[in-house]
């Protein structure tokens, strides 16, 4: 199940960032995922609590920002949106395009708690 593997890798990166910044715990995580990364946002959400259990990020919320696919045409130079299975220029319909967005699988933001929550 590769979304679980991806979540475990994500938690590894989050814990590294958290430790480097002296975090007591992680409150929120934001990631950017494009359709061409090969991971599915819904499945990531499902796998996330399993991967986060017992880590600094156990109670962190996960926000997934979906990055739409964009291509730049090598022929006419236009930058347009595209479907993952139709990577052609939206302006002139040529198939010789470079993907400029939509492949992302990135950790973009980590919100940490640097002091323990007050005891009550």
């Amino acid at each position, binding site marked *: *199940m*590769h979304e*679980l*593997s*991806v979540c475990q*890798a*994500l938690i*590894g*990166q989050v814990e590294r*960032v958290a430790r480097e910044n002296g*975090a007591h*715990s992680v*409150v929120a995580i934001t990631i*950017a995922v*494009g*359709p*061409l*990364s*090969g991971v*599915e946002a*819904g*499945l990531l*959400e*499902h796998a*996330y*609590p399993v991967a*986060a259990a017992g880590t600094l990020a*156990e*109670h962190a*919320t996960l926000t997934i920002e979906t990055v739409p696919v964009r*291509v*730049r045409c090598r022929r006419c130079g236009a930058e347009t949106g595209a479907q*993952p*299975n*139709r*990577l*052609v220029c939206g302006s002139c319909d040529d*198939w*010789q*395009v*470079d*993907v*400029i*967005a939509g*492949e*992302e*699988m*990135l*950790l*973009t*933001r*980590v*919100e*940490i*708690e*640097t*002091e323990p*929550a*007050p005891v*009550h």
Partner: protein
Amino acid sequence: MCRDCGCSLGPAAQRAPLAAAPSVPGRTETIEVITAILGENDRVAAHNREHFDQHGVLALNLMSSPGAGKTSLLEATIRALDGRLKVAVIEGDLATENDADRIRACGVPAVQITTGNACHLDAQMVHDALQRVPLADLDVLFIENVGNLVCPASFDLGQHRNVTLLSVPEGDDKPAKYPVMFRAADLSLITKTDLLAYITEFKLERAHAALRQIGFQGETIELSHRGGDGFAAWLAWLGREVAAQRERTARGETARPSIQPEGAAAHAAGHGPVR
């Protein structure tokens, strides 16, 4: 059960609610980072690539659906090469040594990775398997990934080239259905063309069109592992890639598949597209 890869994760419609933030937070701080989520896998993959390059070995990642003919292609390739290139194979499957046994029967070393329920190989699994691969004696290492058109595309293993197989019985629209996988290929093989006479629904021109539509810009070879011009073209491609890898190694350079997941990191950092 997962619709894509048969694992135990439920479909998206049944997703669980996300974990809630604690209601009484202490002092919080937001850290902006741009980090590849699979950065650790990428690090191990780069390490694998160094191993291959140290020994001048060309590493190829073979990906396709189950039953597209990866192992049959390798058997036929090893027999046709007849020792002219020194080959070893890493086999990835959920279970059994069957494929490794078939490769060993052709007289070359094979290491089987059984992933349990994991639907793809990752760089660490390949690194562990490399301990049992005689890299110093090789020209080519084939890594036959788990038969799956979804998950393997996201994980760099340290290979120099990705080769995908699309077999005639699967249908000519497979690239449109699984764009991420087929786009990741440097070489796309349309296999089992000996069945074209029986499976008349499969149109080669439609398969080529589907590959173009998903932005595949590599080379395509139509072949049957039973022989013919296409099979000869595949062997010629292999020979060229082995020679290119030797030249790169001599210059202290390496190569990566043309489409890499980390391309995303470069985009976010404001660089141009990675080719």
